[in-house]
């Protein structure tokens, strides 16, 4: 489009019929119906081209079938006290841990511990994604060590919580980092309680 408008001044052939002297003019003539048509056609073409680009970008976004796994529902009643289930959410491993009273007590006691690398209270780690407090017993975590992404094992390490075998990071019973190379606490997954025993993750 632009090249065509430029050529108006570059080339003598443009609009020969109107006036021949016009072809040598270098300054743009006053806006006329002719210019309006060219600008309108050029603009319409440019807008169309820009709109066409969107589907070609959007197609790379997650497809509907992929998105249908973006949130999962988990029935907590099948997780007995002191147990944890490991499940996949969006292709990533997760821990759903039913904590014992002892674990809860230990986690709360350490809320003010001086060696917390990434300070957070146990309460704050139970919050649902809608801001409501969760249940004390259930900790919903991404099972991915914040160091380099290995899956930590439970009931190992120095703090009664998780231990990452790859590079030796120790997490407590609230999933907080206490010792080792990992910089952050285990990430709490976004979840909400749909009923007393069902949560929706994602």
């Amino acid at each position: 489009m632009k090249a065509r408008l430029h050529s108006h001044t570059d080339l003598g052939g443009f609009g020969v019929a109107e006036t021949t002297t016009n072809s040598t003019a270098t300054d743009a003539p006053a806006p006329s119906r002719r210019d309006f048509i060219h600008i309108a056609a050029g603009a319409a073409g440019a807008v169309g081209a820009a709109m066409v680009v969107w589907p070609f970008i959007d197609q790379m976004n997650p497809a509907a079938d992929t998105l249908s796994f973006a949130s999962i529902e988990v029935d907590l009643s099948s997780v007995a006290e002191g147990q944890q289930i490991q499940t996949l959410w969006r292709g990533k491993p997760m821990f759903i841990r039913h904590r014992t009273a002892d674990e809860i007590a230990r986690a709360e006691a350490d809320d003010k511990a001086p060696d917390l690398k990434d300070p957070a209270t146990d309460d704050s780690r139970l919050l649902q994604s809608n801001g409501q407090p969760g249940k004390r017993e259930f900790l919903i975590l991404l099972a991915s060590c914040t160091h380099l992404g290995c899956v930590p094992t439970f009931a190992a390490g120095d703090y009664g919580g998780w231990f990452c075998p790859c590079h030796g990071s120790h997490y407590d019973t609230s999933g907080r980092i206490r010792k080792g190379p990992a910089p952050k606490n285990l990430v709490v997954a976004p979840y909400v309680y749909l009923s007393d025993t069902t949560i929706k993750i994602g």
Partner: protein
Amino acid sequence: MSGPSTYDPKTGIEKWLDARLPIIRLAHDSFVSYPTPRNLNYFWTFGAILTFCLVTQIVTGIVLAMHYVPSIDHAFASVQRIERDVPYGWLIQNIHAVGASMFFLAVYIHMFRGLYYGSYKAPREVLWILGCVIYLLMVGTAFLGYTLPWGQMSFWGATVITNILGAVPVVGEPIKQWLMGGFSIDNPTLNRFFSLHYLLPFVIFGVTILHVWALHVSGQNNPAGVDVKSADDTVPFTPYATVKDLFALAVFLLMFAVFVFYMPDALGHADNYIPGNPLVTPPEIVPEWYLLPFYAILRAITFNIGPIDSKLGGVIAMFGAIAVLFVLPWLDTSKVRSMRYRPWAQRFFLVFVVACFALGWCGGQNPAKAVYQAGDYSQVVTYKAADGTEATRTFAAHTPEELAIAVRAWEQDNPGAEGKAAAVVEPFKFTVETFSQLLTAYYFAFFLIILPVLGLRETPRRVPDTIAKAVLDGSKAAAE
């Protein structure tokens, strides 16, 4: 022809670049200042339309390849996933599928235009041959691409076409196996077809560059078929040809969009929505519409020609139908380029176009189908009537199946009358097969006999001296 470059770099950067890589100069000389015959009609806009089609197919194809799975277990479902789940997948898939048809529609108009206006004649032989190469590559690419959705037509089309290779004596079978990577169309075949379907468009792109290069060396032909002699004969490509091309492209896009949004499956075949099944052949195997004329030629050879059996004969005829285009520049003996000034060539050309359409129609029909049938099938049944005398009864129906039903129905109604049926009398039938044979004969005769002989015998009308004169004559004629 292109003349000295009129590009005048203005800014420092342009001058700097021009001294190192004169790419702006090339673009300017090719698409801006390039002198274009002033008498080009709308048939000359299809070059631009075809470029658009090629780019569209490549861009949508690259996108589809991100989602398509080339495996016989997943191909069909992955295409469905594109249509159902991928954001705008339905749109991109429709554009690609309809786009193939649009591409061929445009290329056929482009080719018929070249044929009518003698665009293949000196000095444009190489330009024409490169075009034929592009067409051949397009056919190959379309065939490979049609296999990918792995529907019934994909599978059986691939089976039938690869079997064509089996017609080649001695080496045919080993080559067939080599191409399929197995003993039948299977997963290895699908994988390599996908790979080649991705590759060939870029080859087309490369040959297109050569095609455009050749065009810019010899210059465009024009409806008058006379050479450009002076500046009066031409207008600069931009804005004259550009704006006309863009307008024509917009009209083309309107039709394209109607298919994409309102009848995306109209150009395809219903059977390709049935997943490929090696155990069941569809009742009628037909290629996509754009290959139907060649399919009709393939099937028209039903007889052995000396040592060549009918199968190989059909294959030779089909490839010959394309091969003859390559040598066309040397077959046409006429000194006059444009058929506009060749009254007899015009008539034969018109018949040729009709023959091509008719071949296309034949390619989609059952060869045994009657184009014209004189009367009904009939059968005389002799039976013993109730009074013991011998009686006859004549049955007639439009098809042998209907005739058999009619006879059986009568027998059921008359259980006592044990009849003796005479042989079925067939009416005279002009079948699709015979029709295809006649059309095929004309197709080849047009190139091999009519064009060579006509060029020597025909007295053309007076050809204008220059394009400018042709334009003036034209407007005078219109005024009268």
